C-alpha cells in the first residue's frame, strides 16, 4: 500500500522520499555495500569506460526499439480519426476528446470530467465512454496515453530534441519548474469549470486543439500550440507535459494501479544516470541513483508514461517493461 501512496505523492508533485536504511531489504543493503567495495567501484568505472569507448553505446539512446513502435502508435491512432472522416468509413468518429469506435462510445477522462463539472449533469454516454477508455488505459499503463496516443506528445518530443541540442551547444538552458504546479493547476481548472460553468481548460488544451486540427483542419488556435512549443524549445523542457497537463495527471491516477509497468533491477545497474537524462518525468527514476533503491527490483511510479526511453537509454539493461500480477499491485 505504501508503494501506491508514495507513487501518488510523487505524481502530485512531492519530492521523492528518501527511504531510511531500516526500510531497505537485506538483499538491497548487501548489494549496495558490495557495490561500494573499492575493487567493485574500480570494476564499475572500467565498465563505464568500456561503454563510452564503444561508439554505438556512447549515444544517449542505444536503440530506438520502443520509440519506433510508439511513434507508429501515435501516428496510427490519430490517422485513424483523420481517415475515418476523410473517407467516411466510420471507424473512429469524433476526436480524441470523445468518439465512437465502430459505434462504441469513447470519451477522454479529463474532457468528460470538465464538461460534467461545467454542466453539472451526468450523461450516460459519457459514463460508458469514460469507463471504456479508463479500462483501456488502465490495462496498458495510465499515462501510456501520453506517450502512445497523444499528438501533442509527439510534437513536444521534437521540440525537446531541439531543446537538448541547443542546450548541448550552450545556447540555452532549461529552467525547471516546481512540479507541484501541475496539482495546483489541476485543482484550479476543476474549480473554474465548476464555478464559471465553462470548460475553461478545453480552450487552451493543445491535445484537443491538435486533434481537431488534424481531423477538421487547423486555424488560429494552433498559434497557442506554437507558443507552448516555443516555451518548450527555449525556456522550459517539456513545459506542458511535465508541469501543466491535467489530462496526463488524470491518466496518472489510473497508472498507479496499472498492470503494465517499468521495472528497475538493482544488480544490473551501474548508476550512470542515462535514464534520468532522457526521461520526461525523471523523479520516477530516483531509485536509480546510488544507494537509493530499497530493494533489488522496484517498479516505477504512477507518473511514468511507459514511453520506454529509459529502457532504450540504459546501457546495461537494468530497466524493462513488466506485467505485474494482481499480487504485485499493493
Amino acid at each position, binding site marked *: 500500500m505504501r508503494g501506491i501512496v508514495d507513487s501518488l505523492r510523487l505524481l502530485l508533485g512531492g519530492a521523492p522520499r528518501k527511504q531510511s536504511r531500516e526500510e531497505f531489504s537485506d538483499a538491497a543493503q548487501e548489494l549496495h555495500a558490495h557495490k561500494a567495495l573499492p575493487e567493485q567501484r574500480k570494476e564499475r568505472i572500467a565498465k563505464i569506460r568500456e561503454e563510452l569507448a564503444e561508439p554505438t553505446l556512447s549515444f544517449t539512446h542505444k536503440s530506438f526499439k520502443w520509440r519506433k513502435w510508439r511513434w507508429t502508435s501515435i501516428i496510427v491512432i490519430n490517422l485513424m480519426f483523420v481517415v475515418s472522416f476523410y473517407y467516411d468509413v466510420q471507424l473512429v468518429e469524433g476526436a480524441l476528446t470523445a468518439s465512437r469506435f465502430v459505434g462504441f462510445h469513447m470519451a477522454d477522462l479529463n474532457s468528460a470530467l470538465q464538461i460534467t463539472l461545467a454542466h453539472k449533469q451526468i450523461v450516460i454516454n459519457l459514463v460508458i465512454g469514460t469507463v471504456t477508455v479508463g479500462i483501456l488505459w488502465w490495462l496498458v499503463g495510465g499515462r501510456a496515453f501520453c506517450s502512445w496516443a497523444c499528438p501533442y506528445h509527439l510534437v513536444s518530443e521534437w521540440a525537446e530534441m531541439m531543446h537538448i541540442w541547443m542546450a548541448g551547444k550552450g545556447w540555452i538552458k532549461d529552467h525547471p519548474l516546481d512540479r507541484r504546479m501541475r496539482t495546483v493547476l489541476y485543482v484550479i481548472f476543476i474549480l473554474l469549470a465548476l464555478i464559471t460553468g465553462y470548460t*475553461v481548460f478545453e480552450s487552451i488544451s493543445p491535445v484537443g486543439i491538435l486533434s481537431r486540427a488534424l481531423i477538421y483542419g487547423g486555424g488560429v*488556435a494552433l498559434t497557442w500550440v506554437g507558443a507552448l512549443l516555443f516555451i518548450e524549445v527555449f525556456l522550459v523542457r517539456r513545459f506542458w507535459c511535465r508541469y501543466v497537463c491535467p489530462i496526463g495527471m488524470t491518466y496518472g491516477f489510473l497508472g498507479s494501479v496499472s498492470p503494465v509497468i517499468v521495472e528497475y533491477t538493482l544488480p544490473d545497474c551501474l548508476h550512470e544516470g542515462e535514464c534520468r537524462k532522457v526521461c520526461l518525468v525523471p523523479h520516477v527514476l530516483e531509485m536509480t541513483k546510488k544507494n537509493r533503491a530499497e530493494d533489488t527490483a522496484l517498479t516505477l511510479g504512477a507518473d511514468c508514461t511507459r514511453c520506454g526511453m529509459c529502457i532504450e537509454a540504459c546501457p546495461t539493461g537494468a530497466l524493462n517493461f513488466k506485467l505485474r500480477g494482481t499480487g504485485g499491485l499493493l
Partner: protein
Amino acid sequence: MAKRLTPKQQKERRTLVFSAVMGAGVVGSGLMAYLPMHLRWETLLRPPGALAEKDLLASCIKCGQCVQVCPVEAIVLSDGDGGFGIGVPYIDARKQACDFSCDTPQCVLACPTGALTHHLDKKEQVNMGKARLSRPDACLARQGQGFKGKARGADFKGLHRYEKIDRWNPIKIADHPYDLPLCDLCVRECPIKDAISMEPLSKDQAESDTRRTPVVHDKCVGCGMCEMICPVEKTAIVIDLNREGPKV
C-alpha cells in the same frame, strides 16, 4: 535581522516564483478565452437541437461527431476565436445551410453528450432561430421579378438535396439552374412545410400587380436554407438566432 538565504534556497525561491508566473500565465490564457466567446455570443447559428448557449458551451465535449455525420457538411467547429466555445459546432447558413437532407437530424443522434438535445426526433421540432426578411427592398419577388440561372453563381459550393432529382444525395446548387417567372426560391426550397409562403404585396390581386412577398410563419425552425438560396447579394433574408435552446 532577516536570515541570509543560502544559494540553494535562493535557487528554490527563484524556481517557485518562476513556476507561479508560468502557472498564472496558463490560467490567465485560459481565462482570456472569455473575451472572444463573449464577442461571438450573438453571432453563431447553432446546429439543430442545440441547448441554450451557455448550456451548449458547458456540455459540448468538442469532438465534432455532429460535423462528421452531416450529409451537406453544414456544421463547422469554432476555431480559437471562439474562446471558451472552441470546438463547439455552428452553421454558416449563407455558405452552407442545414437543409435536413438527413431527415432525422443526424447531428442530434451523433452528439454523445446531449449538447444537441436527444429529446428531439423530428425536424419540425428544431428551433435554431427564425427567418426574417432583412432587406425587403432587395427581394426580387417584392419587385415582381423572376429569376433565371444559378441561384448563387457558378462558383458556389453549397449543397442541397433536391428530392425530385435524387432522394438520397444532395447536389451542388450550382448544378441546378432555375428559370422562374417570379423568384420564390426561399419558399420553394424550404424543407419545413408551411414555414414560409408567398403572399400578395398589395390588395390588388389582378394581374397588373405580380409583386409578392415572402412571409415567415411560426413553423419556421431557422435552418437557414432560405438564407443560403437567396440569389441577391447580400442576402435579403437572414436568420434571427434563438439562444433559449430547444422547445421540446
